[in-house]
Structures are given as C-alpha cells and as structure tokens.
C-alpha cells in the first residue's frame, strides 16, 4: 500500500449509497429535507485492511529455540590387564611389620621442612612403546618408591633409588641390558621387575637362565625378593624336564645354560613361549655361533632381558652378539663400533658404584709383591729357562697353547714350590689372616686352580676355612655359604674364580685375597665384587699377590694397562679392544725368537 492510499479515504461503492438513500422506512416517517447530495468518487478497487497482521506468539519467528539446553559428552576408555588374584593379598595395616623385616619402634622425627621433596620414580614409556594403551598403562602406574617401602610388597630392605630407576628402566622395555657394575644388585632389580610385571598381569610365564653354579643363588634371591612368586627349576631327567617345558604352568622357571643347551629341541618347540626371558651373566652368549647362543635365541619370547656386569669381555662384537638375542635386527650388519651406541644406548643401563653410591665404603687395592722363597726361585728360574729353550726349538710350529703351558707352569711355581711346598704367598696370607680373624672379620681367597685351594685349606686350618669350588657338589654349596655367613669361627672361604666369581653375595666379608691373578681383569673384578657390593658397610681391602720379578708381574702390568680401557667400552669404543691378552702379548711375555707362521690358515 502506497503512502497516498493511506491519506485519501477509500472509495465507497455506489450501490451501497443508493441503498441507503432509497430506504422506504425513512421516507414514511418524515419528509426528507432537501439536502445536496454530493456524488462521492467511486471506489475503483476493493477495500483492503490497513491493520498490521498480528500473529500468535507461538508462531515463528517470535519464539526462537535456544537449542539443546542439556549438555552431553562422549567417552572412550581402556581396560588394563587385571592382576592375578593370587598377587593381591589384602593390604596390611601400616603398623604391621613386613615379612622378613625386623620392626623397631623408633620415635618419628618431623620431616625437615627444608628438605627437597622426594622424587617419585615410575616407569615411563619408551620410544618403542607404540600403542597408546601401552603408554597409558605405564603412565598410570603408581610410583615404585611407594611399592617397596616395606608395606605393599615384602622385601628384605627398601631398594636404593638407583635400583628403583633400574626397575623403571627394565619394566617398560622388551629389549634391555642391565649392565650395572658388579655389586649394585642387578639380581634384585631383575627379580623385582619381573615380580611387578607378574602383579600387573603383564606377563604370565617367564624364564630365567643362569650359569649352573648360580642356580642356588638365584633360588635364594627369589625367595628373598619375590616370596609370593612361585618358581620351578628344571630338575631331573629328560622326561621330567620335558614336563617342565611343556606342561608346567609355574609362572617362573629357572634353568642353567648347560641344561638349556641339552634341551635345545624343547626350547625351540613352537609350543614353548615365555612372556619374558632373562639371561644372567649374559656374556655367556657372546659367541654368536655357540650352541648356547643359538639355543637362547631360538626360544619364543616377548621380552628379552640380559644382565651382565661385563657384557663386553673382549671386544664390541660381544655386545653385537648380545643384541642378536635382545633385539635381532636392531644393529645393522657391519656397524662400526663407534656407531654402536646409536642403536644400543636406549636399551642399556649401566651404573657404577662411583655414580650411584657415594656413601658406599671404599675399596682399597693392595698389590702385595712377594719375593719367592729360595726353593721357589730356583725352581722358577730353571723352569723358565728350560721352557723358553723348548719354545724356541718349536720354531714355526709354536702356538699360543705352547706359551700358555709354560705360563701356567711358572704361575704354579709362584704359588708353591713343586718339591718342598714352600710358598712366599702363603706365609704372607697366614700373617694377614691372623689379623683378619683377630678383628672378627671374614675373608675370601681366590685362586685359578683347585689344588692350591686344598693346600691352603690345610694351612689355614686355625681360621676355619671353607671351600667353594668346582669339586664341591652343587647341593652342598648353598649350605657352605650359609655357614660361612653365620658361623663366627669360619673366617675364610677359599674359592676358585670359575665357581665363586659370579653372582654370589658375600658383602659380609671385608677382605679379598687374589692368591694368583686371572687373565682377564673383568673376571677379577667380578671376584672382588662378591664382597664389595650393595649392603657392604665397611671398607673392603683387596690384596693382589704378585711374585716379584716373575711372569706374574709381567702379566699384571699388561692387565693394568688394559683395565682402564674396559671401563669406557660400553659408552664409546673407537676401535675394537681386546681385554685379555692377545696373541702378540702372550708371545711378548718371554724373550722368544720363535713365532708362529702367519696366514698359514
């Protein structure tokens, strides 16, 4: 409607006006006055209403919806493996002493307000943890330091923080090498890691492989650190072992390398599977082609862990071969030694005592040079002179073995004169042992051979000597160690390097005597660290006997030069290193003109 339309009145229809004028009733009542009738303009179009349309309030757009007033969310969730019921005993009250722990009521001291908050230690996902659920499971684990404070899990003593870090390192990894220096408690760390994984339901079957002499030690450590974890050693004849391999549901099985190699076919059986396989003294598989290494690698497994204080005994190839078990394919073929850490560093954890335990008692080396007795000197000189002559006579047919034979002969004379039995070392040892016994301490004496140990046992009779070597039956070994620990009259234990140098915990001893020297400093270190390890509260004195002006002194000089190399091998190695004596060094022990034919093979 236009503006003009609103101003002008709308036209009235003519018919309507005529009807109004012509009404008869009006004409009958009175005469009509004379009026002028003005014609109105005619409406030329229909009338339209001029009122705005008024709609009901319920009609749009006057009522607008404010949208959904209620709020909603969507969710996503993850369920984690449920711990087996047998590992979830009812919690104990805080006042209840933990199993195997002596409770002493001491007044509680207020916390030092200035002390820094105790760092919580928990496993973290690794770069290899790909699945979000797996990463989540690790992130949501409670701190390890809360688990082992003696209330939740029974442990003989609360692990040190560095040990908790070791557990946090092992738990998330499917390939891991724990290479802590001897004496830092690698066994306990491995056991506690397995125990927690069992508790979390992450593993259900595990296999522990260790050297035969250490089976008893592992059994003892398992009882100590995982009393709630059933384990089963591979014992008995072939049929019994077959049952253990294929039928037994025991969560943790314990086998030694020798038995494992014997059961190689069963170990490789496709029905055999372990969620975790742990190698103790893993340097045993450093030779990739050995049957032991092949058998270990043939086991179907989820996690591959290795424990060794000396994973590199001779050359970086040892480490490469170890990784053939830990994570085949991780190290590309022909990787130069200096590039190894690029592939291996995430899987290796190595700590030294210097790093983790500044408060650990010191270890003092005492190189005791003794002069051979006249009888020994005479025998020694004669043997060396004749031996060198003999070697030179061999000419090009000479071999390392020939030199070794002479070295062994001379070293034995350095221990005892073959005719009279005189020994300068023994005289000094008896003197030292008198002091050890007088102070109520205990000592370990190591030798390369069993025979000298048996001679020493007679000579050291006043000090209650015990023997622990290859000629002692397996079943008797653990009671011997227990007696050595408990019996105050037993001041000395005589051990061979081969049997006593690995895995034993003898931290209650404060003196170590190396009656003769081993070829490899790593083996010597292992022996020494039977005493100088976690739990040791007093200084440890290591006496290394060396017969002056003999082959022993020459060997010691070479080994000391090499010992330094060993300490850095895991971190970086610019070139392959040989830690024992190599061929040239062995020939160099004597003034030999003869040399083997090179390149003959």
């Amino acid at each position, binding site marked *: 409607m236009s503006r003009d339309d609103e101003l002008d009145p709308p036209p009235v229809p003519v018919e309507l006006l005529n009807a109004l004028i012509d009404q008869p009733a009006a004409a009958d009542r009175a005469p009509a006055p004379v009026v002028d009738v003005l014609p109105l303009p005619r409406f030329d179009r229909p009338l339209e209403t001029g009122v705005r349309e008024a709609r009901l309030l319920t009609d749009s757009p006057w009522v607008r919806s*404010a*949208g959904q*007033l*209620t*709020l*909603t*969310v*969507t*969710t*996503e*969730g*993850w*369920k*984690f493996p*449920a*711990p087996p019921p047998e590992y*979830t005993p*009812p*919690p*104990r*009250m*805080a006042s209840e002493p933990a199993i195997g722990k002596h409770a002493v009521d001491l007044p509680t001291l207020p916390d030092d307000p200035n002390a820094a908050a105790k760092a*919580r230690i*928990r496993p973290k*996902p690794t770069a290899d943890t790909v699945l*979000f659920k797996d*990463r*989540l*499971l690790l*992130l*949501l*684990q*409670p*701190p390890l330091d*809360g*688990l082992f*404070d003696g*209330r*939740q899990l029974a442990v003989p003593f609360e692990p040190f923080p560095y040990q908790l870090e070791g557990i946090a390192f092992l738990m998330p990894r499917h390939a891991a090498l724990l290479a802590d220096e001897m004496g830092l408690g690698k066994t306990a760390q491995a056991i506690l890691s397995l125990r927690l994984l069992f*508790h*979390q339901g992450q593993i259900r079957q595990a296999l522990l492989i260790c050297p035969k002499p250490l089976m008893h030690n592992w059994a003892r450590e398992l009882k100590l650190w995982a009393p709630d974890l059933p384990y089963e050693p591979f014992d008995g004849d072939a049929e019994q072992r077959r049952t253990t391999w294929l039928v037994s549901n025991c969560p943790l099985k314990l086998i030694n390398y020798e038995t494992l190699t014997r059961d190689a076919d069963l170990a490789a059986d496709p029905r055999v599977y372990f969620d975790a396989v742990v190698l103790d003294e893993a340097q045993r598989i450093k030779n990739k082609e050995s049957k032991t290494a092949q058998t270990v690698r043939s086991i179907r497994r989820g996690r591959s862990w290795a424990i060794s204080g000396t994973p590199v005994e001779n050359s970086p190839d040892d480490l490469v071969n170890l990784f053939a078990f830990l994570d085949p394919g991780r190290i590309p073929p022909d990787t130069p030694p200096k590039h190894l850490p690029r592939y291996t560093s995430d899987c290796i954890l190595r700590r030294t005592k210097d790093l983790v335990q500044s408060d650990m008692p010191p270890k003092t080396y005492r190189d005791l040079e003794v002069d051979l007795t006249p009888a020994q000197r005479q025998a020694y000189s004669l043997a060396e002179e004749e031996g060198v002559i003999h070697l030179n006579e061999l000419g090009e047919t000479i071999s390392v073995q020939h030199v070794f034979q002479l070295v062994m002969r001379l070293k034995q004379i350095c221990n005892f004169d073959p005719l009279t039995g005189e020994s300068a070392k023994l005289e000094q040892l008896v003197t030292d042992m008198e002091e050890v016994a007088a102070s109520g301490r205990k000592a370990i004496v190591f030798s390369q051979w069993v025979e000298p140990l048996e001679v020493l046992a007679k000579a050291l009779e006043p000090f209650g000597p015990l023997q622990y070597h290859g000629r002692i039956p397996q079943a008797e070994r653990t009671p011997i160690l227990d007696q050595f620990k408990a019996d105050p009259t037993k001041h000395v234990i005589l051990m061979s390097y081969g049997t006593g140098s690995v895995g034993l915990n003898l931290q209650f001893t404060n003196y170590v005597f190396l009656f003769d020297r081993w070829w490899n400093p790593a083996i010597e270190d292992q022996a020494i660290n039977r005493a100088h390890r976690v739990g040791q509260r007093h200084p440890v004195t290591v006496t290394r006997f060396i017969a002056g002006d003999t082959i022993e002194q020459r060997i010691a000089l070479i080994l000391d030069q090499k010992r330094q190399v060993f300490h850095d091998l895991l971190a970086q190695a610019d070139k392959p290193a040989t830690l024992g004596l190599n061929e040239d060094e062995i020939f160099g022990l004597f003034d030999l003109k003869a040399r083997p034919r090179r390149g003959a093979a």
Partner: protein
Amino acid sequence: MSDRTASPPTLGFLSVQQEPAGWAGYYLVTNAWGRPLEFRLSSAVQPNRVQTALYGPTLLDYLHADVIGKALVEKTGLKPDLIVTDSPTVLALRSRVEVPVVALRPDAAVLPPETRTLTHPRASVALLLPAAFAADESALVAKLDAVDPAVDLAEPFTRIREAVAETRKLGVSGRVA
C-alpha cells in the same frame, strides 16, 4: 553376589579439567594398591552463552557432576567402592550415584559450602564430604582403612595429569570428541 565390603576396595579417581575446547573429564579406576585397572576420558564440552545464563551458578555442578562425572562412572566397566575427585564441584555426583564421593580439599581458604572436612591417613590432604551425605562418613572411613597404607589418595591425580598430557600429545582427546 560377592561381599564388596569384605574385599579390598576398588577406587575411582575423577578429575575434571578445563581445556581449550571446554571441560573434559578423566577417570582412573585402581585396585586397593593403587594399580590401574581402567581409564576413561570424556570429550570436552563447552557451554554456550544461553546455557551459561540459564544454569547460572549451578552450571559447573551440573557440568562436572551430571554431564561428565556421571557419564564417565556409568560407562566404565568397573564399579568403584569410593570415588575421589580433585574438584569440589564433582561432589554433586554423590546424589547421582550410590557410591561415596569425596574431594581433596583445595588450597583455597574458603571452603565450598555444604561440605564437611575429614582427615584420614590415606590422604595427604584433608577430604571434603558432601554435608547432605554425612552418613557416608563411617562407611567411607571403613573403606579407606582397607586401602593399602602406601596409597595416598592425592597421588593418582599426578598420574592422571601425565596421562592427560599424553592424550593431548597424541591427539586422543580430539578423537573422543
């Protein structure tokens, strides 16, 4: 039906956090040792202006308890014996579920209204209980007594925060939305 009061309790830890996309909930269920059994997270929800105006001061209670808290608890397979939250606004959840709900007392000097404070050795900070459900206290204390002494009710929220950071890093939060 097993006697739930006799067995070690299952614990639920519920955290509601404000994120760039809105409020999101994270819910961790553990056993009495504090070991994780189940974890669930919600999508982020952002109230609009009308909702904010209409819900007024009840918005956060509604959002945290009714919308996020209830959804997480109901969707989670494992039913807890006790729910612990780090946000007092989630305490309203108690009227929607048949499980005691307690909140860690915030550092703020002013306590949320209609709450009661209680302490327990399993919590390094004081706990808040809805005053309307004061009768829960005895049952609550009995359940807390059955929790492992090494557990601190405040500690799992640290784990949740780490898990939240991981979900953000991997973009899982956005996937839920």
